[in-house]
């Protein structure tokens, strides 16, 4: 068995990026002078040397099969000398050095299902998580909602129709593998029922002290149930974060009747104009309604279009809301403001309005 005698390599780290850079990038590394958007989805970077690189940005569903990756590679071989990259928002960027290749490439990548767009003041891909495809703590699916929302907003991806940048993100539970807490619009899966305790297994598969310590509100206490060591939950203190379930599988929190989606708005990470901001609650709960989640797609489209109609050039969702006020946001979007919108966790008081400056 020659296979078994092979030296076992470990800790080699990722391949050096230089091996993956096209010659034009190696030659112009650190020498780029400016860029412009030449058409929807196409960026042109120009170097001090005069070299030109076109990046053709195409959407993916993030989940890609090896069959599709090979098709994408075929296009990169044909039009980009065998080089491409992916973006932090799961887009493909075909790296093109010959202008004549742009249009045929756009045609072919669209034909195989990866359309071009999402640059500048257009809607880029939705950063998202695994959902029911692969996660144990998901309160909803991820890929399905993303597909439904982007189908609905496709025109805004394909062309620059917005006043400024709009970034949507989705996380299927509060763990937020998608870290959606600083997005213009965040779609977040939420649980609404305390974990159901599997008393026969708590002591077998979990460490009870760790489990108790995992609860940020101290809602979990020791209990003896049917003569076995277990825990009880003070349900009034549970805020459905699921941290206990993460440390103890015997406290399942997923619940078909109560799980659903919440919508958050106004976050950003860039420093442009205003400092980075968290997203704030717009809609506390919408139902899980597969396969197309119409309540979610309608809610997102409404918020997007109200912002697009009212924001000034460059103004992000949060900047627009800060200018016009939250009352106007709820008024224009028709979203109901409820007691759940008023913070009740740590430092909640810092979010209460403390002036008589009110718009009438």
């Amino acid at each position, binding site marked *: 068995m020659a296979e078994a005698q092979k030296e076992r390599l470990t800790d080699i780290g990722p391949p050096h990026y230089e091996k993956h850079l096209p010659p034009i990038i190696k030659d112009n590394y650190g020498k780029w002078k400016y860029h412009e958007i030449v058409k929807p989805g196409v960026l042109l970077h120009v170097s001090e040397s005069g070299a030109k690189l076109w990046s053709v940005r195409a959407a993916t569903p993030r989940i890609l099969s090896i069959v599709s990756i090979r098709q994408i590679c075929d296009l990169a071989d044909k039009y980009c000398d065998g080089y491409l990259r992916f973006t932090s928002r799961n887009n493909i960027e075909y790296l093109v050095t010959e202008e004549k290749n742009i249009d045929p490439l756009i045609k072919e990548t669209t034909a195989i299902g990866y359309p071009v767009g999402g640059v500048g003041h257009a809607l880029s891909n939705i950063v998202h998580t695994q959902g029911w495809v692969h996660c144990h703590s998901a309160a909803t699916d991820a890929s399905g909602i993303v597909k*439904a929302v982007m189908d609905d907003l496709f025109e805004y991806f394909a062309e620059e129709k917005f006043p400024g940048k709009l970034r949507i993100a989705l996380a299927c539970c509060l763990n937020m593998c998608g870290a959606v807490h600083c997005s213009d619009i965040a779609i977040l899966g939420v649980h609404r029922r305390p974990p159901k305790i599997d008393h026969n297994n708590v002591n077998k598969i979990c460490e009870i002290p760790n489990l108790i310590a995992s609860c940020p509100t101290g809602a979990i206490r020791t209990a003896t149930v049917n003569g076995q060591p277990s825990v009880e939950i003070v349900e009034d203190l549970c805020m459905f974060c699921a941290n206990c379930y993460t440390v103890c599988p015997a406290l399942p929190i*997923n619940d078909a009747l109560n799980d659903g989606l919440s919508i958050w708005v106004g976050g950003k990470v860039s420093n442009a104009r205003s400092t980075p901001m968290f997203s704030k609650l717009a809609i506390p709960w919408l139902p899980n309604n597969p396969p197309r989640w119409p309540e979610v797609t309608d809610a997102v489209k409404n918020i997007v279009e109200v912002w697009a109609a009212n924001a000034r050039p460059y103004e992000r969702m949060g900047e627009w809301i800060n200018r016009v006020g939250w009352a106007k946001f709820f008024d224009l979007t028709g979203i109901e403001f409820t007691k759940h919108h008023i913070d009740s966790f*740590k430092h909640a008081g810092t979010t209460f309005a403390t002036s008589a400056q009110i718009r009438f």
Partner: protein
Amino acid sequence: MAEKKKVRKTPLLDELDKGPWPSFVKEFKTLQEKKEVVDDLMGQLEHSYETRIGYWKHGGIVGVMGYGGGVIGRYSALPDKFPAAKHFHTMRINHPAGWFYTTEALRKLCDIWEKHGSGITNMHGSTGDIVFLGTTTDELEPTFSDLTEAGFDLGGSGSNLRTPSCCCGQARCEWACYDTMGLCYDLTMEYQDELHRPQFPYKFKFKMAGCPNDCVASVARADLSIIGTWRDDIQIDHDAVKAYVDNGFDIVRDVLMNCPTKCIDWDNKTLTIDNSNCVRCMHCINAMPKALAPGKDRGATLLLGSKAPIIEGAMLSSVLVPFIKLEPPYQELKDIIEAVWEPWAEYGKNRERVGEFIERVGKGNFLEEIGLEPVPEMVKHPRENPYIFYDEYFEDEDEEESEEG
């Protein structure tokens, strides 16, 4: 050889095979006949769509020899109904910095995953890794062996350093204030042990953004956010400014009025910037990329502590070092990183991120511990409450001594 294989019917998922946006269902279907695991994955997902709940069991501890991370154990809760998806482990593979690929390398990865797993990937996962979705425990070690032979290694998971990631930086952006990809690769290689073997209270992430636009969301998603900036003056090409205006660009509305510190002036001929009051927000540069550019004395701001809500609520990173030069071998940065890790690794509670740790022990105390001087750039404003925790106080005798002095 065999006739066309029968596959499961998935009427709900089929609804998502329609419409203009790329469909993940289409991705599954490319392998549904070839890979039983994909057919069963689709079956289980269809069942989730019918019943509105997930069916994956809580992870188990699986991995490759000698590593404590990089593999997420996953098992179906309905193994009798979907036997081929009984084991459905994820492998995280450390991507090349900046997510640049030759098609040759991508095809190699495809061949490995066709041989050992479901053939389904994420390009990429939230932290930046190439994600191989779905294989069995038996296949983990052989996959790892083929990956390392092809020059790839696993990324981080659990209480490890997580796979560092960065924007494309100087490879394709004129705004990059340091070599993000160079630094990302350097730190990844320097800290291979921390990346593969859990030794922290919880996860730790690095993200490198070349400028304050922060295209990798480092300020929200990295425990250590390394955001490029500059100390000297914004570079102005006055002819190019004029060209923008001559072409109808509304410089007053779109640039001056959007400047957060109102440090830009325009007298219909010349643009002037009071750089001493510029906060390096990037807006004017973003709006006029042909005319303005970051200055030449470039480096980065280090910010520490961002995270998603679990456990104590979401946090943004906060300023640790207002400006640092970043040139290989990056020793000053590495000294800071290791100084940050030491007290956190020693005193951090289980599942406590460094941002939560700092909030618990106090940022002032933390700075003292790691040997950094407090500076006003670190806070939005000084404290508003009078509840200062003094470590020491004078006794009567001390007071006399101090009067003498």
